[in-house]
């Protein structure tokens, strides 16, 4: 999708957005005059339509947990959220009128946020006696962009897990990929949604990876930025929940952490006011942002089958040997964490992914 598509939308209001989101996008690099211009502009707030399909409402809940800016600030000052079932005041047929009025009057102008997967069987998900997939097609046709929010909308997620009882599909399989930005996560971090909307309005379409996700959010492997990475490298693992003693936080891969196969900025931006994230509470990542979630990540508490651990008894015990292998590994462009895998003659998915990324680049 072209960047021009978004130019008409008011993108100025968003500069008022403060804190972490602005910093994450590197807005501080804008010139003073640009900032002043943006702040002075008082364009109309961009219209948004938020539809909930086969979901648990968790991505709506997550949005209400937004921190910087918070949900009320977004709604009062930055976006004109016309249709959002979980908080809108309108009732019954009135809500349908709002939806259709927005689609007609703001055609080509509004952003559609879709939460939840889309059942493809007749009657398995309806609003006002219409199947979700028909509602989606109508809303998407005239939207400027469609954000598939959360893993269910992006990839099918939980309801699509085997045996996919409702025969659900992700948004992009119903309406095509060209307008869709996937923001997976179970739930999606509110910062991902807001920073993506900011990107769309201010800079146009973000660069997406092969799974339709913005690279600025999903471009890095969790394992590479993990606060427990040092423990992984040194071979210090939690073997079972509850076995660790006071003090250092050990690596969680042996109790099933999927960080080595998962890509997001969770370790950097964390969750809920940056207070915590899954690894911080000692339970590990479950891979909830990946297209193959949840099937490929269950059993959640089992170690990734193809993840080799560094060394045999840890780097410290075999420092010389590892050092030797490290040199060779670096030479062929594989990260330190793949050393063990390289030494054992097999590359994990994680390393394979990096290789693929290099090829794509």
């Amino acid at each position: 999708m072209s960047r021009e598509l978004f130019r008409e939308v008011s993108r100025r209001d968003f500069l008022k957005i403060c804190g972490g989101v602005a910093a994450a996008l590197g807005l501080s690099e804008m010139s003073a005059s640009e900032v002043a211009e943006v702040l002075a502009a008082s364009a109309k707030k961009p219209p948004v339509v938020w539809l909930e399909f086969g979901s648990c409402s968790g991505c709506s809940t997550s949005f209400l947990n937004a921190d910087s800016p918070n949900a009320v600030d977004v709604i009062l000052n930055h976006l004109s959220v016309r249709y959002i079932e979980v908080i809108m005041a309108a009732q019954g047929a009135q809500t349908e009128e709002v939806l259709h009025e927005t689609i007609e009057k703001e055609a080509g102008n509004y952003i559609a946020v879709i939460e939840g997967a889309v059942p493809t069987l007749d009657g398995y998900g309806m609003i006002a006696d219409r199947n979700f997939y028909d509602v989606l097609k109508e809303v998407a046709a005239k939207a400027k962009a469609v954000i598939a929010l959360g893993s269910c909308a992006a990839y099918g997620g939980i309801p699509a897990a085997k045996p996919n009882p409702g025969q659900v599909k992700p948004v992009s399989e119903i309406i095509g990929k060209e307008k869709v930005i996937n923001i997976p996560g179970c739930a999606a971090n509110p910062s991902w949604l807001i920073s993506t909307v900011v990107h769309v309005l201010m800079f146009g379409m973000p660069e997406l990876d092969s799974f339709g996700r913005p690279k600025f959010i999903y471009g890095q492997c969790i394992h590479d930025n993990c606060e427990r990475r040092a423990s992984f490298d040194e071979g210090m693992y939690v073997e079972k929940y509850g076995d660790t003693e006071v003090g250092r936080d050990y690596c969680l891969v042996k109790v099933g952490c999927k960080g080595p196969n998962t890509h997001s900025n969770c370790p950097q931006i964390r969750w809920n006011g940056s207070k915590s994230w899954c690894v911080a509470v000692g339970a590990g990542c479950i891979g909830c942002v990946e297209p193959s979630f949840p099937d490929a990540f269950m059993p959640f508490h089992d170690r990734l089958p193809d993840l080799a651990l560094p060394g045999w008894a840890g780097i410290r015990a075999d420092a010389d040997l590892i050092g030797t292998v490290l040199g060779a590994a670096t030479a062929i462009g594989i990260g330190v964490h793949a050393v063990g895998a390289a030494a054992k003659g097999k590359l994990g998915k994680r390393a394979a992914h990096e290789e693929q990324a290099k090829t794509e680049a």
Partner: protein
Amino acid sequence: MSQIITVDPVNRIEGHLKIQVEVENNKVVNAWTMGTLYRGLEQILRGRKAEDAVLISQRACGVCPIPYATAGSKAIEMAYGIDIPENARILRNIINGFQFLGSHILHFYHLVALDYVDPTAVAQYTGNDPELLDLKSLIQSGDTAPFTPRWDHDFRLPTDINIVATKHYIEAVRMYQRVGEAIALLGGKFPHVVGIVAGGMTPKVTPTLVTELIGYAKELKDFIDTKYVPDVLAVAPYYIDYGNIGVGPGNFLAYGAFEGADRDPYNGLLPRGVIMDGDINNVQEFDQSRIVEHVAYSYYQDGNPRHPGDGVTEPKFTGVPSDPRRGEKYSWLKAPRYNTKAMEVGPLARMLVRQDPNLLDLAAKLKIGPSVLARIAARALEAQLIANNILNWITELKPDGKVPCAQYKPGSGRGYGLDEAPRGAIGHWLEAEGGRITNYQMIIPTGWNASPRDITGQPGPYEIAMIGTEIKDLSRPIELTRIIRSYDPCIACAVHVVDLEKERIAAKFTIGC
């Protein structure tokens, strides 16, 4: 002559719900509640490792995932004979306690308040509060989505109460964020947590954690004491007729929550029990073998009413009835009944089973029945009760720096976990062989409250509560949506299918839990 009135969607709830009523002379003579989404989580769990149920089942509900995780964990712990450490019991009380506070605050301010409070009164605001001034300029600019359009024919509050309540609506979002932060400290993030596992909890209990939790608990207690409860009491007198509108079946069910060190569900902060036929001072013991589920009016293959564990559930969508009076199937929800009766679950049920003196006193003072207002008041008073107790629970923690999780070996067995979600009783039933799930069943709160008719034609609680209601303006039946929202519906949770195979599960649980 009678006519059919439809509200679809019923929004400001979780999930997808449609209601229809038959009206004669502006009075509801018949009512139908229709769950309009099917997902099917239990089918997904079959064959998985039991522990995966803790993470998958909470994804039935993004609003109250915590009690799903605790009920799922309890089921596994019973099946495998695991005794969780005291710190884990306490942390679970704390994390679910915060879940209740967040959910109740969200319900009152963000789901329900817009039916009673007029935020456009802020146009007359003359003070300096920056957020109210933001809202004022929004109103003046004419772009008031999503607070308009609305049904605005029955706002009764004076301007000052409207403005104060609107200010608290905005503050309540921040309180909801605080709840998310507190839960994230114990669960990793919110919604959907990883910190609750079979055997206990995963965060280390450190003095830092204890200190942070105290901070959150105090901040929330302060908001509830000085804003939430006073706001409910300030609004109630203007809508006092709702003290007798929306009266349900008069049968109440609570599984109980927040067990103490004795781990007796009849002795926790919110005890287990049953009230039948409106005899609200007569609390009886609960016997799970008296639960059956009906599918006569649900989109499933017909079969006899069964104990939920029977698991004969074959989806069969037969179309949206052109007229609900025809007696066709009309909902994705099944119809659970206890002792053949439709049961109300939720804060009002729990506070009545508790015989909570504050609620009983307030109801007597306001002369209100088990109604819309009683549900809203019970929820606020329950939030206050829990907020007070979270501080006590935190001080019970032993900050030894260890992960409070018992070691165990997965195996085979059957177990159930009964707990309370903010919107009512939640039960999980599990059967596992060799560590893998052979059957999993959930009965969740809105499954009780929003149930359709059963095979005898007995309507569900929402339906009973709507019948008899006078509607002032048939084009804007706000009386009905006020009734429905007072229950805090979560249709997202309610619509899941149980197992396709004809296995009996809960019927094997002979223990009178």
